[in-house]
């Protein structure tokens, strides 16, 4: 049985308590075996399994947000090292600097093991740090304009050499700093949206953790949008939404519910194409199986996009995003012609 992680989330506590009790009883049985104890352990074990199922199969949206942010969740570089070989990281935007919150480079995607083929791809991904020092170095996964511009530089290089692009989204948002604004955070994101809409090679986007706002979308335009089961993707974080609309930080759970920010919410809206199933409890409970599910999903998407002529690919990409949005036309009773004074 997979042990519950050592950095449990609040809602996992009842499981942990049961698990501790089980350990205790098993230790006791080691000392003095008895039929009664065996029966009690058996009962507790089945209760543990039931509870585990009922918690993890009924995750609320806010619980999924917490899983997406779990400090042990696989990050971009973990995925890259799991399903690619010989990643050559490329640094800098050739304009101002390098941004550690965004990684970019060329690598061999090991598609052969997923029934596709091994091939060169470009990868760009938002990168968080694992410990205090690295978290700060990676700016918590929040890019400056240089990050978006570096990503674009590498994507354009991919187009030049006819290589597909894989984008890994995992950010709590673009960095809201003074210098980021001075150097055109908005322009950098806008430019990427524009250029990604006309990049003549296949683009596969995977939301692996947090997909917050324009900061995430800045590398999120593509032909296939995949999303891990416990990732979230929305226009704003639940906390900020709570603070703006409820004028209080206390409504993050309501906001998470209202924003419909999980993969199962977004698929029927046409915002994502496929959901990548995660191990019970989230990717960090069994990273290896999470990597293989993600690698397999990327391989499938790349295979589907192989051999599509660039003009067809771009037309389909435009149509895909054009179809996003829900609205209704109401009848206009008369021609809306307005003339001046």
């Amino acid at each position: 049985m997979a042990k519950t992680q050592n950095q449990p989330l609040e809602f996992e506590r009842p499981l942990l308590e049961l698990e501790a009790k089980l350990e205790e009883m098993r230790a006791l049985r080691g000392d003095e075996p008895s039929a009664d104890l065996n029966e009690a352990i058996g009962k507790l074990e089945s209760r543990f399994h039931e509870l585990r199922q009922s918690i993890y199969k009924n995750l609320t949206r806010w619980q999924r947000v917490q899983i997406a942010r779990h400090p042990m969740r696989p990050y971009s570089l973990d995925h890259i090292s799991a399903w690619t070989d010989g990643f050559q990281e490329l640094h800098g935007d050739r304009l101002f600097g390098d941004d550690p919150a965004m990684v970019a480079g060329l690598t061999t995607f090991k598609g052969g093991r997923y029934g596709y083929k091994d091939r060169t791809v470009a990868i760009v991904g938002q990168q968080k740090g694992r410990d205090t020092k690295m978290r700060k170095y990676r700016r918590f996964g929040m890019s400056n304009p240089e990050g978006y511009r570096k990503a674009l530089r590498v994507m354009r290089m991919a187009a030049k050499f006819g290589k597909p692009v894989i984008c890994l989204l995992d950010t709590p948002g673009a960095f809201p700093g003074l210098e980021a604004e001075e150097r055109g955070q908005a322009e950098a994101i806008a430019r990427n949206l524009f250029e990604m809409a006309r990049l003549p090679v296949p683009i596969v986007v995977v939301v692996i953790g947090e997909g917050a706002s324009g900061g995430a979308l800045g590398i999120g335009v593509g032909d296939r949008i995949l999303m891990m089961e416990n990732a979230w993707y929305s226009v704003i974080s639940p906390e900020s939404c709570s603070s703006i609309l409820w004028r209080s930080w206390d409504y993050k759970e309501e906001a998470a519910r209202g924003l419909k920010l999980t993969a199962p919410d977004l698929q029927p809206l046409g915002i994502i194409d496929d959901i990548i199933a995660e191990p019970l409890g989230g990717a960090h409970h069994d990273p290896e199986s999470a990597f293989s599910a993600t690698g397999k999903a990327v391989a499938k998407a790349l295979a589907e996009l192989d051999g599509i002529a660039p003009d067809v690919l771009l037309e389909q990409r435009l149509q895909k995003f054009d179809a996003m949005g829900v609205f209704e036309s109401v009848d206009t009773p008369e021609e809306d012609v307005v003339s001046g004074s």
Partner: protein
Amino acid sequence: MAWFRRTKAGINTELNDQIDVPKGHWIKCKECASTVNRRELQRNLLVCSECGYHFPMSGMEYYRLLFDDAEFEVFDTNLVSQDPLEFTDRKPYPKRLAEAHRKTGLTDAATGAMGKIGGHPTSITAMDFKFIGGSMGSVVGEVISRAIKRAYTQETPLVIITQSGGARMMEGALSLMQLAKTSAHLTRLHDKGLPLIVVLANPTTGGVTASYAMLGDIHLAEPGALIGFAGPRVIRETMGQDLPEGFQRSEFLKEKGFVDQIVSRAEMKSRISQLLDLLLEPAAG
């Protein structure tokens, strides 16, 4: 759509009803606190005669200002939000929509129009800040996209007037995707060699800045407009310090290289038509 009932052709409201300032003969300027006469303010294109502060102006007034002889055809006033997420915060979203409609006569925060500027047939799309802070949801994204399509199918230049707090929270990821949708349509305008002139009005922030507002061939900004991605409050909290004077204002954006010119409302029409003459050669006749 349950929230929406068309009572009259909502777009024919008088100029008086369109001003986003309190009723009464005298209005206090938000910038210099001087008291200005309402009629005079209207004659002066909603610009304070004391300090030059540009009061918010509706999309319809921009069309009247910019199109030759104030003649134009309005489009897409019949698109309404369906509340796809059934979103409720302190108020249900349909209630907010209905209130905004009642207040403005608009169905959402953007419209489109076709007319001529300096003889050049032109597609304009203008946002309306008064409709839920000019926020962009599915309807705004569609309206802007249709205005872009009108420009590239009829081979006309495009002018976008932006005034928006950003993407609309109440439509979640659907709002976010409007950034990508509008930007994708702009690639077609670009490929046809047609100009995009963006007019940045106060305020232009968030997702609107991070999409079409920053993708123009030419960026004109009204004086003193707040233009940025993150809001000043968030940046102040991140930095833990006060922001410099004039930060994220038009003049700052020009200094940093993101705005071509600062143009007052009174000069906007002639400036756009000069630029179109340069880009397209003067219109015949």
